[in-house]
């Protein structure tokens, strides 16, 4: 039984120079597993994630043959229904906490906001839950963090706050949009391991969007490779090295390998018909 079912998703933006199709017929299903979406900039992977949450605003338009979450039709749902879903059942972690956290609100307020408004908890209860969430992402001094402003936190810390914030309501599905791309390499590993543990312990479904093919392969069960708004290949992470599609092969060949040949790394050959 799939949790999320997307069929023939199309996202179009009306621009001054004519309509631009950012997503051109993407289909996938997701159960309680980890799906990675890989692609370069402009491939439409971020937009796909946002489309699932129906966060695309005009002049963008979402169309699909079907888009259901746990039996609920996401296309036909009213804005009110979507708001009930967002946060509570589907969460999203974004790339850079410097921008994705409100700079003039304390972390504590941002963490407890959803609990107090959406779920009606009192201040004490909400604060307790928030502190517990901070603890779950291994923040050692939750008191100080609660009273701090986002610009006072380091990148890794901010991202952990972000994760905590999205995980407080215990959603069924988490969409992680380049969650570690803005972090230093050493911090990346820490944050990823936290994310890994949490997703596993709570049995959440995960969509992991990234441009980093190796990372996605390590982290996820299945991988979708996107290019220019289309899915060019879909395979199990374990079989990644045996990928067939020329684009995926091209991506793999770009990656440097320790012990590999010393010649210049090949670039991508975008002359195939898949490249239109």
């Amino acid at each position, binding site marked *: 039984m799939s949790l999320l079912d997307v069929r023939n998703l199309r996202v179009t933006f009306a621009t001054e120079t004519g309509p631009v199709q950012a997503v051109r017929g993407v289909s996938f299903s997701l159960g309680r597993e980890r799906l990675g979406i890989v692609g370069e900039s402009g491939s439409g992977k971020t937009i796909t994630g*946002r489309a699932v*949450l129906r*966060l695309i605003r005009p002049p963008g338009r979402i169309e699909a043959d079907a888009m259901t979450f746990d039996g609920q039709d996401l296309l036909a749902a009213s804005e009110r229904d979507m*708001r*009930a*879903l*967002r*946060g*509570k059942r589907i*969460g*999203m972690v*974004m*790339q*850079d906490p410097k*921008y*994705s*956290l*409100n*700079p*003039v*609100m304390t972390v504590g307020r941002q963490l407890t*906001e*959803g609990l107090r*408004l*959406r779920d009606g908890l009192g201040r004490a209860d909400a604060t307790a839950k928030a502190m517990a969430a901070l603890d779950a992402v291994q923040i*050692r*001094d939750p008191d*100080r*963090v609660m009273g*701090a*402003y986002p*610009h*006072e*936190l*380091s990148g*890794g*810390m901010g991202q952990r706050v*972000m994760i905590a*914030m*999205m995980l407080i309501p215990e959603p069924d599905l988490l969409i992680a949009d380049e969650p570690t791309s803005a972090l230093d390499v050493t911090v990346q590993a820490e944050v990823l391991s936290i994310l890994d543990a949490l997703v596993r312990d709570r049995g959440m479904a995960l969509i992991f969007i990234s441009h980093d093919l190796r990372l996605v392969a390590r982290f996820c069960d299945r991988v979708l490779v996107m290019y220019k708004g289309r899915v060019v290949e879909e395979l199990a992470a374990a079989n990644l090295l045996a990928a067939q599609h020329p684009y995926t092969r091209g991506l793999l060949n770009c990656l440097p390998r320790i012990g590999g040949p010393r010649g210049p790394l090949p670039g991508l050959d975008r002359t195939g018909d898949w490249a239109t």
Partner: protein
Amino acid sequence: MTGIPAPPRDNRLLRLLGQIGLGLVTLSITLLGLLLVTFLIGRVVPIDPVLSIVGERATEAQMTAIRIKLGLDLPLWRQFFIYVTDAMQGDLGNSIRTGESITTEIARYFPATLELSTLGTIFGTLVGVPAGVLAATKPGSIADQIVRVVGLMGYSMPVFWLGLIGLLVFYGQLDWVAGPGRLDPVYDMQMQFTLTTYTGMILIDSALNGAWDVFGNAISHIILPAGLLGYVSMAYISRMTRSFMMNELGQEYITTARVKGMPEWRVIWVHAMKNVLVPLITVIALSYAFLLEGSVLTETIFAWPGLGSYITDALFAADMPAVLGGTVVVGVVFVTLNMASDILYRLVDPRARE
């Protein structure tokens, strides 16, 4: 692994004091510069100030006496020094027309301008901010176009012309509001002789006295100029609010708030608005200053006995010390407003507190 650099408390306090100190020094330099400019302007006067006091028939001895009394025989820098020290004590010299201390006169006239500009800015903010938000949240819509066009017209109009048109239409033709002046003569006398003056602002004073008929009359007089000034103010404020709000709505944290399932009104009025307020405070302060400046022109139209009228009357009577005194006062208010908005900015924006 903490990740938060938390400086010890005393260090932070010291830094805050240092910032205030620096601000005061900058303020002093700016004020000094202002005084220098007005002083120099005053010395450029082609008309000999002595002549304008004693007339052309005075003897040489009389003129010399006056010259010494005015301190005009001293070297320029000493004159400037006296000028500055006098100004710091609140002495801006005496008016040529009335002989009275300029500072006392200005103190009498200033509340009227203050009342008008404050009311105008309040109108401008109360209408301009929601209008700007509306335009920003529905870009390209009819509402957006209307707000932009109305705003654009607002600050392309000469304020004094707008005042004239307003008087013509709302007073002359429609008779909806009272005419020029702050009060009808009968209420004016009542105000002066029977009621106690607290602030010099008629709306406040009459209310404190419980004289509601005076209050009502004052409202009917102030509503037109305040409304028109409010319109001009609103034009600028709505435009800036729209610009700031559009900027904020494109930020990532807005998406985060939506992802959390927050209702749209909260996303706009709590999340975005808090960020918009930071630069908006400066805008409102600037708008206030702009209204004060424009008072020079509008007050003549509405026979409003404020600082603007004082300056223009002095201008027409060639009373240069009074004109310059008024300039200094407006300048000081300007500079103070700028500094106040700076301080407020720092208080409101947590990022600027470091």
